């Protein structure tokens, strides 16, 4: 397998409604920004991998067709990837496979969605099977509410833990100009007072629905060496699926994530993730999930995710969150603001990979973690079903 680097990334500012751009325009914006960042031209792209969320959300069946010009796919192989919320990460991983296999040297991975264009939770409810599952669903929040409640009863996590994560990622977002939500003055009180959607999940425990797009350029080592753009080396990649029979799983024990993490860590030579990873971008569509993912990723033992919140280990150093975070900066999670601050679904998991790349390429601006050398990007999707892990490094493993 060949070494692969990310040499360019782009995503436009996310917002609730992009009036001045349709889906094709957003995809074009993202792809163009990634190419400029890499110092490449559209003609340099050899193959395109396109990812987006379930079709019902946009109402356009196989949208990659609609976006073939905007994604510079004409005259080249173009493939669509779809794995629910994970799709952005799966799209990046597929592009990585294309380059690592030796088939292509320069591959564009691009994703986009406009959640403003339909009743998004209605579309999300159709993700559940129509015979046993869809009947009670309330889009994504209800399934995660059950996961969160089970976690709280099992391990003693409280609403306060959820609220602290909601505040952490929203305050981080204030330093990311591309994040959708910029909630000035966000604090625990505001989370506590926000309306209940599906108990225990309140409105501010949940991600927004955004319009946006994202793009990444994956290249072979040979090409990377010729480019002056800083590199993020893809040192570990894994994607693991759980069964669709969601009633047959302990949702507080993400076995797919554990397996994905183990594989990616082995590839990247990570033996102590909490110590060796400098920054992580996780797919926390709902606040409580972040703690469960900490455990799945081996940042701590099972049932101890809330400790990292109590101690503040996953908070950014030097930021006042309005409560004590004595160990801030040990392993900052979601300096970009995370999924709680931007979520168009199609690009969301790719933005985790983009943000992790930006950190090791020293391009994260105001939300840069100083000296980040190893970054982790996580993706989650399906009915609490798919997990992906990518380890990006300033140097190749």
């Amino acid at each position, binding site marked *: 397998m060949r070494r692969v680097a990310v040499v360019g990334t782009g995503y436009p500012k996310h917002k609730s409604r992009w009036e001045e751009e349709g889906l094709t325009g957003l995809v074009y914006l993202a792809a163009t920004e990634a190419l400029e960042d890499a110092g490449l031209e559209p003609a340099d792209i050899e193959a395109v991998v396109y990812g987006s969320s379930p079709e019902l959300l946009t109402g356009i069946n196989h949208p990659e067709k609609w976006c073939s010009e905007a994604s510079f796919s004409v005259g080249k192989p173009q493939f669509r990837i779809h794995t629910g919320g994970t799709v952005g990460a799966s799209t990046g991983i597929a592009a990585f496979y294309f380059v690592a296999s030796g088939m292509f040297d320069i591959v564009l991975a691009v994703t986009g969605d406009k959640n403003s264009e339909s009743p998004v*939770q209605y579309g999300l409810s159709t993700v559940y099977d129509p015979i046993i599952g869809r009947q009670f669903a*309330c889009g994504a*929040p209800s399934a995660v509410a059950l996961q969160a409640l089970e976690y709280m009863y099992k391990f003693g996590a409280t609403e306060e833990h959820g609220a602290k994560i909601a505040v952490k990622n929203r305050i981080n977002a204030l330093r990311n100009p591309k994040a959708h939500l910029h909630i000035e003055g966000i604090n625990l009180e505001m989370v506590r007072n926000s309306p209940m959607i*599906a*108990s225990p*999940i309140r409105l501010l425990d949940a991600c927004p629905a955004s319009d946006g797009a994202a793009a990444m350029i994956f290249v072979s080592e040979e090409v990377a060496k010729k480019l002056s753009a800083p590199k993020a080396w893809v040192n570990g990649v894994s994607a693991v699926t759980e*069964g669709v*029979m969601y*009633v*047959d799983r302990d949702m507080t024990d993400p076995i797919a994530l554990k397996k994905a993490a183990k594989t990616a860590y082995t590839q990247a030579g990570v033996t102590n993730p909490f110590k060796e990873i400098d920054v992580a971008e996780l797919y926390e569509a709902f606040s409580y999930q972040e703690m469960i993912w900490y455990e799945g990723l081996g940042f701590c033992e099972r049932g101890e995710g809330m400790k990292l919140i109590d101690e503040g280990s996953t908070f950014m150093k030097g930021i006042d969150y309005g409560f004590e975070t004595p160990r801030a900066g040990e392993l900052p999670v979601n300096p970009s603001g995370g999924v709680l601050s931007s979520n168009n679904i199609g690009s969301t998991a790719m933005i985790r990979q983009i943000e992790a790349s930006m950190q090791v390429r020293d391009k994260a601006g105001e939300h840069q973690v100083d000296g980040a050398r190893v970054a982790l990007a996580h993706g989650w999707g399906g009915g609490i079903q798919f997990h992906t892990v990518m380890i990006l490094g300033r140097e190749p493993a």
Partner: protein
Amino acid sequence: MAEPVKEIKGRLIIPYRWSYGRSLSLFFEHTRVEKKIYGARCTKCKRVLVPPVVVCGRCFAPTEEEWVEVADRGELIAWTTVYYPFPGQPTQPPYTYGYVLLDGANTKFPHLIMEIEPEKLKPGMRMEAVWNEDRKGDLYDIKYFRPEQK
């Protein structure tokens, strides 16, 4: 000049017919005719899967060789009260639904939970199915679950 037109409105109305497959078809025949809940036992790990699936996700072994009746009652595992209204919901929010681990089953069964204030729910609480008089061979052959009546 007037404001430019910025969007076009549309609507998809798509009727579907989803096949149960023989396994779920048999499952709903038992609920409809007998008010009984059956699961399929995995031929390898021997766990009883309710609702039945044709292949066990853990063993990749077939399940359908053995059908096992399970109770229409069991333990409450997790629940949520949904407050947020949107199209496609079964009933007007707020409503509560959750997972019940039926006696004799190894998997959690999802359904509405009624006849109790959500604040009074506890994990491990005993719940029982309330059957519908008018059963059509679908998930609503059971109306909802409620705390077990002594």
